[in-house]
């Protein structure tokens, strides 16, 4: 029993890192622009398809496609920003939510029309097998994903604290008016934040694909998980996102192990609603 507990805590931690990486892009966009993108999960889904097709046609492992998908997705993010987000930033909240819900429905069903519903999984992947650490077995694919996740977070954190652009982003996030007065082009910062967020989604998608498959409905799962994490993290920065991801991953793993796997979503969402009530600014919020 102890071994099972240990094993599942490890499972939870690894998945938690992956969840955090998936949510990181959303957290960045929310932090800077104060906008919740309901289509986030669909962005992840489309990125997973990209990973699949690139890996198939170039015959390279899925994990490597992140190097190609991330820049593509940065551009994708800029385009979406120009087409949709730019028009709704700062307007009344109902319009923001509605526009991104529209995007969500649209992307999901375009994917269905284009690629039909069969699940697609990578055929070339170098990350297979596992390492055994005492009583615990750690799958290499998830371990790599977790390491990449932590690495990406450290990189983002460094970017936000050590570069001029990053500092400008943070200033925009803290106080839009003040940043604007300081001569920062707020609109450009928004575009940058949105693009960066999407690039991170691209990285996340590549590593999800090392152990998961994608179908047009995949976005649902990842979108919902990301919202929960962003709410938990509040505006607590990168470490808040990581901690929230870990908590969520462990809650899920323990719930599946010791209660009914069918209820895992119910438990996660109840947790979500509870946090919204008790700590509407998130567990790690700083304001």
């Amino acid at each position, binding site marked *: 029993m102890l071994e099972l507990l240990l094993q599942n805590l490890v499972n939870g931690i690894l998945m938690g890192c992956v969840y955090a990486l998936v949510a990181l892009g959303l957290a960045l966009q929310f932090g800077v622009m104060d*906008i*919740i993108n309901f289509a986030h999960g669909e962005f992840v889904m489309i990125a997973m398809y990209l990973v699949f097709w690139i890996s198939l046609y170039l015959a390279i492992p899925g994990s490597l496609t992140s190097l190609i998908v991330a820049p593509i997705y940065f551009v994708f993010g800029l385009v979406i920003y120009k087409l*949709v987000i730019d*028009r*709704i930033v700062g*307007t*009344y*909240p*109902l*319009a*923001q*939510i*509605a*526009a991104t*819900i*529209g*995007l*969500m*429905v*649209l*992307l*999901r*069903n*375009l994917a*269905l*029309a284009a690629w*039909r*519903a069969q699940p697609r999984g990578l055929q070339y992947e170098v990350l297979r097998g596992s390492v055994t650490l005492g009583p615990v077995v750690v799958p290499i694919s998830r371990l790599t994903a977790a390491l990449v996740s932590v690495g990406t977070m450290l990189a983002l954190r460094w970017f936000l604290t050590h570069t001029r652009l990053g500092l400008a982003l943070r200033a925009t996030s803290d106080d839009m008016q003040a940043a604007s007065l300081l001569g920062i082009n707020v609109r450009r910062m928004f575009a940058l934040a949105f693009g960066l967020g999407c690039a991170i989604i691209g990285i996340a998608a590549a590593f999800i694909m090392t152990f998961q498959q994608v179908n*047009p409905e995949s976005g649902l799962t990842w979108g*919902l998980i990301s*919202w929960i994490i962003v*709410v938990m993290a509040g505006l607590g920065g990168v470490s808040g996102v990581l901690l929230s991801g870990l908590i969520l991953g462990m809650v899920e793993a323990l719930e599946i192990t010791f209660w*009914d796997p*069918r*209820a*895992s*979503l*119910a438990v996660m*969402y*109840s947790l*979500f*609603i509870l946090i*919204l*009530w*008790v700590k*509407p600014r998130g567990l790690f919020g700083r304001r």
Partner: protein
Amino acid sequence: MRASDLKPIVALTAMLAALPLAVRMNNYYVLLLTWILYYSTLVTAWNVIGGLAGQLDLAAASYIGLGAYTMGTLLTRLDVTPWVGIPLGGLVAAGFAALVGYPTFRFGLKEAWYALATISSVVVLQKLFLVWEEIGGPEERYLPARYGELYYLRFRGYAPYYYILLAVLVMVLLLNVKIRRSKTGYYLLAIRENEEAAEILGIDVRKYKLRALLIYAFVTGCIGGIFALISGYLHPHHFDTWTSLQVAILGIVGGAGVGSIYSLPATTFIIYSISELLRSTLGGWIPGIHLIFYGVILTVVVLLKPEGLSETYERLYGRIRAALLRRRAGGG
């Protein structure tokens, strides 16, 4: 309520009541009309919270499911007639709304957070009913197939349901008009425009938001009971997030709370018909075309006409009217 409020309702009712006869009771068209009326009723009810109070509520499917399960469980287990079960379902839905809504408003959840919390409640309930084998469970629970008996409210055709829903729609329309003209309505409007300002003016924001939510949840719960009667069974899939989204989409596109209340049933009628047309003509080649349409129309309307289509209808109506008057003047 004034006579001018009632006139359009009477006209609308007369028109809608005649529609099934106009399609000669063809089962397909009557069922199509029934589903359109079902969504119209939901959207009109949603107007109370989404339009008047300006809260983007995505919990419609929670209330529908609760209403359906309450009515259905009472009917199958205790043989309680839907005449009693449907309002009870509404009460249960309102109870759940109070349970979730009170803390939600108490802790000041707004905007996107409110939307997320409410749509989460749909998923939570769906999963809980799936696990709760006593009442829910993965197996469909069928309602008694006693057709044509008023006690069971089960019919083989759809016309009876159509008229039941029509009666509900009329009541919900009256309710909307009544609220809008009442003190609650003015307070809600103030909250919608600027919540902080409303609070400073001494309006008990929480109380009025909760009141709007309860009214909406009760009505939606009742409609959920009727939905179960039409579909003929209970299943956790009655808690369907897409239903919630669809209601909100129709509401937003229809311009809930901005213009005339009649814009909502009109929008539902137009969008549902077009999507059904798309599905039945192109659906075979492009799966999901009707949903793509929903996505496009929502995004486009929000980007180009964020206040919804109600004003467009009014302008159109004004123009047609002017043209008719001109012609009459010219002819006479």
